[in-house]
Each structure stands twice: as C-alpha cells, then as structure tokens.
C-alpha cells in the first residue's frame, strides 16, 4: 500500500516538473533520486516531535518520514544524530524579491488628481492591480536573514499604498523564479498608509478609512453592474478579493478600525500587528482573523543618566516590559496568532525574542504553529507546507539542538528538497585543555563551550606570574582560528593563528603570525578532553513577575475598570441647571449610572443603604459634567482630511484614540463629554465623534450610544488656505466666493444622487426590473443627504459676519439648517439673523488677534448672542484650555455681566442642547446620566478645583486617588528603571531615550502626526 502511494507521488511530481521546461545552457544537471536524513529529532508538526526519526525526500517532496522507514539503496544519506529538524517557517509579511519603490518627485504643491497613465482607479493609493508575482526576482541577499531565522517560504508583496495588490508565495531558495514561486497569488494586502502616492487625498487615517470603504463600494458596484466605466484596478480586484486578506496596522486600535470595514464587506481579515496588541486584549477578543505579530520587543533604554531617563514616557517603559508577553497574552486571549520576522533586526534578534516570548508563557507548539501551520492554513496551503508530513514540500531547517528551548545553531536550510549549508561544524570536538607550541614557546590553552560557540582562555607567563588571557576562537568546519593578546617575557601584542583539526580533535596545527608579524607554524596537543558542556540552559518560564498592562497603558491608567456602584453625595450645593436653580444641602443618589433621586429637604432623614458609597459634600458644589462642544483630543493620525474641499465621507468616530493622556487631564478639569470635531481645512469636513471621556475604555465604549450625528463645516481663512503658504493656491476654493459655490455644488450633487436612487427604487417595481442595477453608492453624498434630511447636524467653524450670513442663505435655499456656528466670533454682529435661522453659537471666551478674520472678535460675543436668545456655549478647541473650561465660562460674568448660573450653562447645559444631548446630559435631573463633578467650591471661582469626576456613575477622577496614582507612577518608574539598569549592566543592547511627539490638534492641523500647530484656530 505504502509503496503504491510512493510511486503515485513520484509520478505526480515528475509530471509537475515537466509542466515547464527551461532550456539549459550546457548539459542538464540531474538531482539525486532520493535523499534520506537519518536519526534526527524532528518536529513533524506542532504537537508532534519524534526522536531519532528519518526523512526520505524525492523530487523536493517528503515521501516518507518516521522512526522506521525504508531507505532505498540509491539514496544519499545524511546522519543527523543529535540534530533537530524544524519545518520551514512561513513569512506572511515581506517584500522579498520586490522592486525597491522609486520615490516620486516631491512637490510642495498639492496634487489633486492621479498622475498615473492608463484606466486605473482615480486614487493612486488604491492599486489592487499590482501583482507581486509580476515583479518577483530571486534575491539571495534578501533571503538570507529569513533563512537564517528558519523561514523557508514567504508571501511577498509590494508594500505600498492602501489597497496594495496581491502577494505571491515563494520559496526562499536559490532556484529559478518559476520553481521558487509556490503560488502565484496568495493574498490581498491592505493598510491605512497611502505610501508613495503624492495625491493630496487622503491625508489622514480617517481619510484612508473612508477611501478604502468607498473603493470597496465601487468594487461592489463594478462587480454587480454590467454598465460601468472600465477600470484596470477594479477588474483585477474583482478576481482577487477572494484571496486571503491581510491588513497591515501600526497600532492595536487600527485592528478594530480595519475589522469594522472587514465586517461591513464580509471580508475575513488577517492583521499584521504592531506588537502592542496586549494593551487591548478584551477589544481584540472578537477578532476572527489571525493576528500576525512581530517579535519587535524594544531594547531597554539607557537609563544610567537620570537627567535623560526622566524624559522616557512611563508608557514606553511599560511597553518595554510587556512587549515580550504579547504573543502569549494574545494566545491566552483566544486569538489565532502567527509570528512574523518583520520588525526583527537580525536572525539572532528574532530567536532571542522568540525564546523570550516562550519564557513568558508561549508554548513551544504554539510558537511553532504560529510560524508554520497557522500561516499555511491562512494561505490555504496546509496540504503542501506548514509541516513535515508525507506529500508535503521538503523545506525545513536543521539545528544543532532544539532551537526553541536552547541557543542552537542553524546548520542547514533545506528548500524544496535542496540542501543549503548554513554552518558547517566539525564532528570532532575541540573542547578541552591543550598545550600549544608556538614557534618553540609553550602556552596552555583551554577551549570550553561547544563547537558551535567555543570560548578560550590562554595562560601566559610574565616574570613568573601566570596571566590568563581571553582567546577568541572560531571554528569553521575543520578550520580553527585562534586570536589572543599576549604580554609576556617574549612577546607583546596579538597572536593570530589559523589551523586544522587533526586526530579527531586531539591535535590542532597550522600557521599564523606572531605579534611582531613573523609567519610561523604552531601546533596544539590536547592534554585533557572534556565533554561538550551544555551551555544552553533549558528555558525557564517567567510569567509571575510581569506586570499587567494598565487601562490605558499609560501613566494614570487604571488597574481595572471600575464597577457600577450606588452612590450618595450628601449635604452638597447643587447647580441643577434646571428651574430649581442652585440647591443647598441636597443629597444626590446615583444608581446604575443615572441620577436616581435628589433630596432637598434636610429634615427628611435619608436612608442610606449599606453597600452605598457615601460622599460628604459639605461645603462643596456639585454640577453636571462639562461638555466641550469643540475638542480635538483623543484622535489618531490626523484631525483634518484636507485633501479635498468636500470630505463628508470621513469620520472622526473611526479614529477615536483612548490612549491620550489629555483625556485624564480633562477629567481632572471636570470635562465628561466632548464633541471631537474634524478640523477646518475644508468647507465640508468630516463627521464628528460624540464621546464621553471614559478613561480606560475602548474607542467604541467612549462613543456616546445612539448619539445624534454631527458634521463639521468650515468657512474663512482656513478653508481658503489663506495661511498655508504660497504653494497652496491650487485647491478650490481660494476665496470666500468659492466657498459659497462649494456648498451649492455639494448639495446640488447630493440632491441629484438622491433622485437617482429614488428613480431606481421606483423602477425596481416595474417590468424588466431584473435588468436594472442599483446606482453607485457614494459615501460623501449619502452624508450630505443626511444633512438635507435633518438626520445630521452641522457644526460650522466660522468667524466673520459675511460668511455666516452667506451660509445661512445657502442653507435656507437648499433646505437645510446650520445647527451650530462654532468659534463664531462675529456672531454678535448677526445674532438676530442666526436666531431667525435657528442656529446656536459655540464660541471662545476671549481669543482673538491670531488671524485677520478675528480682528473684530470680542469677548462680549457670548453675552450678546445670548441676549438675542441664541443657545450659546463656550468651547476649548485646545487640549490645555479644555482642562479649565470653568474659568472660561466665568469670563462671561466679566465680559457683559452674565449671571453665574447662566455662565455655568455655557459649558454644560447649552453645549448639551447644541449637541442634542440635553435629554440625558447637561443638568442635574432625575433620570439623566450621572456625569457629575464635585468641586471644592463655586465652580466658577478661580480657586475651585475638581474633587471628583464621574461618568455614567463611575468615578474616573478623584483628587485623592490622583495623588495615590502619582505615587504609583513614581514607584512604577523606579521599578522599571531598576529592571532596566539590571539589563544595562548585563550589557544587553540599549537605546537612548526617545519621546514620541504627541500631537495636539487644533482646527487647522494638517497631516497625521507631529507637534503643535502654529497660532491658528
């Protein structure tokens, strides 16, 4: 039976080989019919390791494997006694053999349209037509590090763009391209980085997200509809979309962002991770695809200089400690993981970190699986690669010992059944004590360690003193080189010797140079043989000393998310923002995150349950939380999608970033909710995210549930790029005149789009409906239609009266409303008109003079608008000011003499009204969300501080606890510094401190990351 299979297999392979004949120059070289590797311990597949096993190879495939197999007489045999065979690893994320991307010429002028020739997709970052197999060349140099790390296969693709194209599965040997190409197309690759495209759009991550979604809808339309414009890109993508999908991310939260798109289009996405996934374990639990994670564990910082080490962010130090636990934590989290070489510096680095991950609890079989079977399964190639079973491709690595548990050397790489020697070590041990004769003088040398990693010590004599010198010993096959420094009675300087092993290691002899440069012969005779010492230690598990990530994994992060608790705040002065006004000596009850009861009668005894948290509010003031109508904190990679004049399709909600320390800082200033707005780089910007400042929660948990939809529009200097320099004079509009027309054009297109869909719906019911196709879905115009249908509200950045007036005219004539004018510093000039239109205003308390358009901005703006009956809020647009909006509200008392209660509403109830959230926030009222702030005194007083801030009844900031957290941070830093010092002292690699620039966004901040913008808002 077995024989039959064997025969069948051989025939099958033979046929396959003859499928393509490459003409040879000269006589055809033959390969051996059978190769047998004997007596090795073999990892057949994850979970199955066989000792003293043999493998029989023919025509590049494994035709038999096991302890007792028949080896044909004509087989070439290799005895691998004591060696370990591991199946070739499979790399999923590489660009091996791909052309190096050519940098396009940089131009400071924006490029609006694609510069590509041919009927390709309109955006240069979407190029599904790029097929890696068209470019693949065998690049031995590029293969080297992969081979040395144990990889035998790789999926290679052109690592550029958002839709990058397909990857090709190749073997990493030196065979020709055809033989090395295992599968022409193995996967489609995606990312959020637009790469080498010089096109202006997209310029932010939310732009990338919107573009990817739109292009997927375009693909859907293209695939389902017979009538469409021709597109090379979509044509190719149509076929390749069914390939396994891979998404390269740069941060854990990006996985969730991509996963949303994947589920929208029913794609099973696998993620090439960034290495910090452990900090989002609970959110990542639901990810179905594999996480392909790097072993890019950071080196310890050099912390010897305290002046410098204090610059290292605590979060980076925590990452240093936790990174190596990433694989095991994800595995334990129930995720499918693969490992990638991507991110490793050298093969040594790769193995060092892989073993480190194993000490942190990653099981050897899981590690092996993550490098072999799991990737093979994703590629649907698990019948060919991924393990060493009969019929599979004979690609594997031979190690001097078990590489997972010891510091083994890679001896051979076998690729498609061809041997490639990586390191040849003599069978004859050179370990032992030798007496060396060099040019007639005698030295004693001791060689310890192993043949792979020998270490040497030489004894020299100086005036009767014995001096021990370290000797550098290298063994390459049978050749040994010995180098040591000598300072004795005869010589001073370096001996450089080279020789051969003779007599099975009992003799070493050869030639070399003396310190004086003279060429001599030498020999060494072993006096005492020592058995090779196992210098490799068995790897010990080390999981108990590892700290847990905080939530978020930054300074002031929480150990765990607090749980709902019943709370009573007694004897407190309450600013209700309701008709009751300010209540004295009241008691507030909070249950399940809501305000349950407000008791104002001090005589009425208040029964307090035992498990209730009771807070004495005597002398203190309680208010509803501050709501910032205009904020740009907690946003990842770009607040502006300024690549086009209309970008309604992008959404800040896609890029909420919980890892922003400013969330906590604003909690300390009593802020509980905020509208995260798109910037003001274009007339119709992106959709807002309405969030609660839920420190420690995931992006989705921060988003306010069922929040009303908002979008940012903008007018004036920013949208006409007035202060962007002389090169930005290309994009329409460049004047206020143009701005008006952008709006008319946008909403006119939106109406036409709506009509097109309505017509379609009508025609569907008619005869011949089967030949009618749905129109193309346009994300931008759908959002504009939401505005027209009053399903989405506008918050419009605006300054001067002319433009405010203009937009209201546009809105009135096109049939929509401006909900809020934000900034609106000349609102006081047209407050009556705004009132008539029905718009509210959210303004700065006192900013002006930063741009020409704020030359007439006055701090009395809020008061004047309010006097005209507008709903007026005061906002921050600034991470720093966001922490003290109570002070900004108080300025309304100074400028125009607003009453204190009305002033306080400017940052609480009024923004809640403007955001249509006043049914659940903005005042202290039974049934509303328990988003409350306890102040040390009158919240408008310069002297007041926040005592505690709660959101949905959870106390997320507490002044006393904050002090404890400061102390905890200090201790944690000290602990990590000590741990790093230990590492520093061990001589482990270090790196100098590096402190990531956390960008503070304002309205007109462009691009993805960076530092603070200039003085423009």
């Amino acid at each position, binding site marked *: 039976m077995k024989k039959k299979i064997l025969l069948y297999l051989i025939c099958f392979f033979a046929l396959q080989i003859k499928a393509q004949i490459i003409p040879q120059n000269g006589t055809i070289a033959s390969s051996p019919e059978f190769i047998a590797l004997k007596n090795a311990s073999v990892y057949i597949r994850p979970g199955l390791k066989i000792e003293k096993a043999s493998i029989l190879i023919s025509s590049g495939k494994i035709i038999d494997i096991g302890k007792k197999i028949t080896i044909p007489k004509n087989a070439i045999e290799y005895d691998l006694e004591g060696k370990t065979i591991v199946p070739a690893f499979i790399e999923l994320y590489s660009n091996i053999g791909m052309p190096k991307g050519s940098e396009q010429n940089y131009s400071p002028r924006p490029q609006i349209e694609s510069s590509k020739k041919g009927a390709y997709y309109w955006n240069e970052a979407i190029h599904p037509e790029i097929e890696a197999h068209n470019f693949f060349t065998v690049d031995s140099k590029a293969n080297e590090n992969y081979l040395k790390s144990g990889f035998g296969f790789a999926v290679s693709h052109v690592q550029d763009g958002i839709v990058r194209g397909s990857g090709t599965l190749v073997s990493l040997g030196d065979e020709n391209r055809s033989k090395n190409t295992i599968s022409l197309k193995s996967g489609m690759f995606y990312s959020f980085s637009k790469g080498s495209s010089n096109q202006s759009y997209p310029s932010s991550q939310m732009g990338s997200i919107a573009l990817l979604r739109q292009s997927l809808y375009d693909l859907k339309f293209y695939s389902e509809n017979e009538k469409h414009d021709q597109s090379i890109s979509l044509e190719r993508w149509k076929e390749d979309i069914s390939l396994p999908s891979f998404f390269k991310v740069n941060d854990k939260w990006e996985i969730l962002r991509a996963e949303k798109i994947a589920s929208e289009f029913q794609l099973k996405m696998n993620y090439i991770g960034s290495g910090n996934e452990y900090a989002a374990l609970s959110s990542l639990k639901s990810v179905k695809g594999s996480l392909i994670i790097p072993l890019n564990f950071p080196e310890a910082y050099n912390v010897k200089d305290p*002046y410098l080490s204090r*610059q290292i*962010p*605590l*979060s980076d130090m925590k990452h240093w400690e936790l990174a190596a636990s990433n694989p095991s934590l994800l595995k334990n989290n129930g995720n499918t993981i693969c490992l990638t070489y991507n991110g490793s510096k050298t093969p040594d680095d790769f193995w060092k970190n892989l073993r480190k991950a194993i000490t942190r609890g990653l099981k050897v079989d899981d590690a092996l699986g993550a490098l072999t079977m799991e990737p093979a399964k994703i590629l649907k190639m698990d019948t060919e690669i991924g393990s060493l079973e009969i019929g599979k491709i004979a690609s594997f690595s031979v190690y001097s010992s078990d590489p997972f548990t010891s510091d083994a050397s890679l001896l051979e790489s076998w690729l498609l059944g061809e041997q490639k020697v990586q390191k040849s070590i003599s069978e004859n041990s050179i370990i032992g004590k030798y007496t060396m004769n060099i040019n007639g003088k005698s030295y004693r040398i001791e060689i310890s360690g192993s043949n792979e990693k020998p270490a040497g010590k030489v004894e020299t004599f100086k005036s009767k003193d014995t001096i021990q010198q370290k000797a550098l010993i290298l063994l390459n096959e049978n050749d040994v080189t010995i180098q040591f420094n000598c300072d004795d009675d005869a010589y001073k300087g370096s001996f450089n010797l080279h020789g051969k092993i003779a007599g099975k290691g009992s003799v070493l002899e050869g030639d070399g140079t003396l310190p004086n440069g003279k060429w001599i012969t030498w020999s060494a005779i072993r006096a005492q043989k020592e058995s090779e010492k196992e210098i490799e230690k068995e790897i010990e598990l080390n999981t108990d000393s590892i700290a847990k990530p905080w939530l978020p994994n930054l*300074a*002031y992060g929480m150990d765990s998310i607090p749980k709902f608790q019943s709370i009573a705040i007694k004897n407190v002065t309450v600013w209700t923002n309701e008709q009751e006004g300010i209540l004295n000596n009241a008691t507030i009850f909070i249950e399940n995150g809501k305000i349950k009861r407000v008791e104002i009668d001090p005589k009425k005894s208040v029964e307090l349950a035992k498990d209730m948290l009771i807070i004495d509010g005597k002398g203190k003031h309680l208010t509803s939380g501050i709501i910032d109508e205009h904020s740009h904190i907690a946003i990842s990679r770009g607040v502006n999608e300024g690549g086009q004049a209309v970008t309604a399709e992008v959404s800040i909600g896609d890029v909420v970033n919980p890892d922003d*320390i*400013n969330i*906590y*800082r604003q909690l*300390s200033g009593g802020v509980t909710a905020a509208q995260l707005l798109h910037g003001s780089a274009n007339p119709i910007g992106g959709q807002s995210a309405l969030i609660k400042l839920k420190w420690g929660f995931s992006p989705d948990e921060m988003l306010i549930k069922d929040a009303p939809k908002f979008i940012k529009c903008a007018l004036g*200097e920013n949208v006409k790029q*007035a202060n962007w320099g002389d090169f930005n004079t290309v994009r329409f509009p460049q004047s206020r005149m143009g701005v008006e027309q952008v709006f008319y054009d946008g909403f006119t297109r939106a109406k036409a789009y709506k009509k097109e869909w309505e017509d379609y719906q009508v025609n569907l019911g008619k005869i011949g409906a089967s030949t009618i196709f749905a129109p193309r879905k346009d994300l931008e115009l759908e959002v504009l239609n939401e505005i027209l249908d009053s399903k989405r509200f506008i918050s419009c950045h605006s300054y001067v009266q002319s433009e405010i007036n203009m937009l209201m005219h546009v809105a009135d004539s096109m049939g929509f409303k401006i909900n809020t004018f934000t900034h609106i510093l000349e609102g*006081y000039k047209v407050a*009556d008109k705004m009132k008539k239109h029905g718009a509210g205003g959210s303004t700065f308390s*006192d900013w*002006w*003079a*930063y*741009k*020409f358009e704020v*030359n*007439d901005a*006055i*701090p*009395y703006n809020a008061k*004047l608008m309010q*006097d005209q009956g507008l709903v007026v809020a005061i906002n921050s647009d600034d*991470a*720093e*000011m966001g*922490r*003290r909006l109570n*002070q900004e509200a*108080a300025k309304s008392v*100074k400028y125009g003499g607003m009453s204190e209660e009305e002033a306080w509403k400017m940052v609480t109830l009024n923004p809640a009204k403007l955001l249509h959230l006043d049914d659940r926030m903005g005042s202290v009222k039974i049934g509303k969300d328990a988003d409350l702030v306890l102040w040390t005194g009158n919240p*408008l*007083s*310069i*002297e007041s*501080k926040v005592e505690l801030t709660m959101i949905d009844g959870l106390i997320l900031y507490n002044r006393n606890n*904050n002090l404890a957290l*400061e102390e905890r941070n200090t201790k944690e830093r000290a602990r990590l510094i000590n741990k790093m010092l230990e590492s520093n002292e061990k001589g482990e690699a270090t790196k*100098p*401190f*590096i*402190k990531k*620039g956390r960008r*503070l966004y304002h309205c007109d901040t*462009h*691009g*993805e*990351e*960076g*530092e*603070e913008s*200039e*003085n*423009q808002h």
Partner: protein
Amino acid sequence: MKNRHIILLFIVCPFLLFGQAKKILFTNGYLHVGNGQVLETALLGVVDGKISLVKNVLTSTYKKGDWDTIIELNGQHIYPAFVAPNSTLGLTEIDAVRATRDYADVGEYNPHVRTQIAFNSESRVIETVRTNGVLISQATPRGGSISGTSSIMSLSAWNWEEATILNNDGIHVNWPESNHGGGHWTESEPKIRNDNYVSQKQKLEGFFEMASAYSKSKKEFDRDIRLDAMNECFLGEKRVYFHANELQQILDIIEFSKKYNLKKPVIVGGYDAYLVGNRLKDSGIPVMLMRVHSLPEHEEDAVDLPYRLPALLQAQGIPFCLQNSGEMEAMNARNLPFQAGTAMAYGLSEEEAIRAISLSTCEILGIDKNYGSIEVGKYATLFVSKGSALDMRTNQVSTILMQGKFVPVDNFQTELYNKYKRKYESKQK
C-alpha cells in the same frame, strides 16, 4: 447694584480723562501693596504722578481741600500695575499676518536688534490687555541664539519714546536645547537627546568669550555694533535672559553665568527649576516662570504641575515671577491676572500671587525702584478693580493710573460691544 457701578463708571471716566488731576486721593480702597501686605481700608494719595501717601483711612485724617480729586472706592481693590514680562505684545498685531510681525530678525546672534523702536504703542491688542490691569510689558524679541535686546514699556503712551520705562534692559539668549525634537509640524518626530548640545553650548560660549574680550577694548572707531550691544551685560547694566526649561540647561546656565561673571542673569521658562531649588537659590538667579496655563511636559507629571510650579518655587525661596509666552501670547497677556489666580488656587497666597505679577516682576526686571508696588515715592502706576482682579468674575477694572495720569479703561472691544448692544436695543424699540 451692578448697574449702578456701570453708571458711575460712565459718568466718572470722561471727566477723569480730560481733567488731568494733579493731586488725587483714593479713600476706602482695599489696597494690595504688591509686596505681600494689605491695607483693607486704605487712603492712597497721588501727587504729581507719584504716590505721596499710603495710610489706613480709619486712623488718619485728611483735608479735602488739599486734593484736586477725591475718589471714594467703597472697598474696591487697588492693585499695583500688573506686568507682562517676556512678551511680543506691541511687536505683533495679527499672528497669522506676516506684515504685522516685528519680533524676530535674520541671524543667530542679534543682541544689537532692539524691540524698543518697533513697539507699536497704538496696538489694538495693547488696549485690551490694559483693561484687565496689565499696564507694563517687557517687549521681547524672538528667534536665533541671541534674539536681541528687550525694553520695558508702558502700555499707555503716545509713542515708543514715551512708552519706554527702561530702555534696553537686557538681551535674550535661547539656550541650546539639551533634548530636542518634536519635529516638523506635519510629522511626528520623537523627542531625543540633542547630540550637538555641547557643541552648541560651546559656540555660545565662544560668542560670549569674544564679547567679553571686546568689552575691554577701547578703540573708538571701527566698532562692532553687535558686540557693542553685549558690553553692558558684563557691566551688569543689562540683564541676560536665558530662555530654558530643562534640568541640564538650568544647571549649565548657573555655571555659565558664573564663568562670565554675569551680574544679572535671569532664567525664563524654568519648567524644571523646582527640581534644583537649592542650587538656583544659591546662585541667586531668579526665574520668570513659564505660562501657568500650560499642559504638563511629561505624561506622568502631575496633571496640575504647571499650576503648582509657582508655589513649588515659592516654598523653596527661589525669586520668581510669572510670564505668559507661548501661543497667542500678545492677546493672551490680558489673562495674566488669571494665571496668577490659578497659581493662588494651587498653593500661593493671594498676596504672593499678586506679587508674582507685580513687585517680583519689577524686581527681576530692575524697575522696582519706581514700579511694582504701591509705596510712597513710587510712580502711581496702578489700577482699581471692583473685586479681586485675579478672578475672572470680579476683575472689573474701573480706574487706571499710569504715572498718575488717568487712562481709559475701555477699548475698541468694549466700543464694539456697546455699538452692537445699541443696535439690538434700537431694533427692539
């Protein structure tokens, strides 16, 4: 009550403006001297622009006939002029409009470039700052290693000559950054150690070396105007303002000041100063502390550390004052009183907070002989506020005196306010 105040203001002000009183007496004011002391029922006399009398109204008497004008304050607060040091106020009008920016010039060492003559005494920004009690500024240059020479200016004058309180008070050195980065504003570049720090520092030393040698030269012709501008630094007539925030920089500045025997060095910024209190105190170098309303520098810094810095320096006995450089600093100078207010909420006493923007500032700037506190013999450069000037709600400036002369408390913004209020009122009718 409030309405009555406003009416009073409108009646009193025009009279005060045009009738230049020679002898003015304020009675029943709550007087913050500026040096930490308080007179709750004060009698304050001004004669020929100078303060002639500061007494307790309950224990002293006065003859009405001795005074041209007597103003009953009914417990309103009197403050010495608040001072905004290290500011581009008057040197810029609209930040985004290049044509209005006059605070930086080309070149690395520009000690000879002077702000005094670029100071726009008619700036619309200035009048809005004055309205909140900030009456003096240090017009300060920016850019380069040595930005130029500042001057101390009155915020009410016909021209820069009259505005000048102290001409060429000091040069401004932007100390090399020990750690730099943050990068271009569209790309995130991490902050890293500045490997060129030592060489940049040595370069600066080289310039001071040259200037120090030059200051001893006596040649009359062929002078180097750049080095001439440095001479007075070595004589102690000009201050040297070192702009720096980090530990390494601060310690190096202490050393540097000793090495060049600088008589009057000042550290501007000083975020890390609280960490080296003793050494700073020993050196006698005062600190013009960074903007109180700033975000913490490090992720794990206390969320309110910038608010607490003044109290931390106060507790260690380091001479300091507040300043407000940063984004939109010209217009934001009017919020200096509230920054002092925040410092008060976070540890300073009220009078310490007031001192940090009045007398302490004048001491550091070297104008305390005539300014900074309400004491007999000093110029009557002061203001009256209806309530605490450090709280937004009660900072209601009703009277301003600049060297004894009444100055309008309104500005174009209050005019626009009234104009549009009238517009709506007339519409309602």
